[in-house]
């Protein structure tokens, strides 16, 4: 497998394993998370599409390092795994930090926010 899809899939898998084995926040059981990811992917098309469009690319990939599969516009397939890893990692960290503040009562968060 070319290097970029290999690393992107690895990054996504690491994030899933960290959540399921270490953090256990329950984010993946939350409908709000999946709805949010659908919205993020919808907005990823114009934003990442603009960055990667072959006609005037801002980010240029070495073809041999990518999957060469472009499901939508010129966005490489592995970019969706990359986005999953980045967004989910930050959401998990955000929730983890929020939990340490809100572990007592929901009101505590409002007071310290």
């Amino acid at each position, binding site marked *: 497998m070319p*290097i*970029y899809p290999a*690393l992107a899939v690895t*990054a996504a898998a690491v994030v899933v394993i960290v959540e399921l084995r270490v953090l256990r926040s329950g984010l993946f059981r*939350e*409908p*709000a*998370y999946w*709805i*949010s990811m659908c*919205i*993020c992917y919808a*907005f990823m098309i114009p*934003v990442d599409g*603009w*960055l990667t469009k072959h006609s*005037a*690319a*801002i*980010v*240029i*990939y*070495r073809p041999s*390092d*990518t999957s060469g599969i472009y499901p939508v516009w010129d966005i490489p397939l592995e970019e969706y795994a990359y986005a999953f890893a*980045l*967004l989910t*990692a*930050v*959401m998990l*960290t*955000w929730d983890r*930090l*929020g939990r340490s*503040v809100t572990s007592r009562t929901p009101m505590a968060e409002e007071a310290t*926010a």
Partner: protein
Amino acid sequence: MDRFQYLLLMGACVLITLPLELHFGARVWRRPRRLVLSLLPAFALFVVWDLWATNTGTWDFNPDYTVGITLPGGMAIEELVFFTVIPVCGLLTLETVRGILQRRDVR
């Protein structure tokens, strides 16, 4: 003006998601300490990945659409903005959807 394309795109992402904070009560920008700490681990890992990928040539940045300030190996400075702006957009979305679902459940 073309050299600001990448930065302008990131600016557009900030602007388009701002109503989530201002009108939908996402409370992400208003928790700056928690926000910065939330971004740091992924920021560090993805910047290391980016530096490596740029150095090995997996990807490169078009000088026509970037301001021209680069980190060693040619990584565009805009990437640092990307790793800040895009996760913030994700958090704003998550907190907005959570708020909407919670208000619906309360009713």
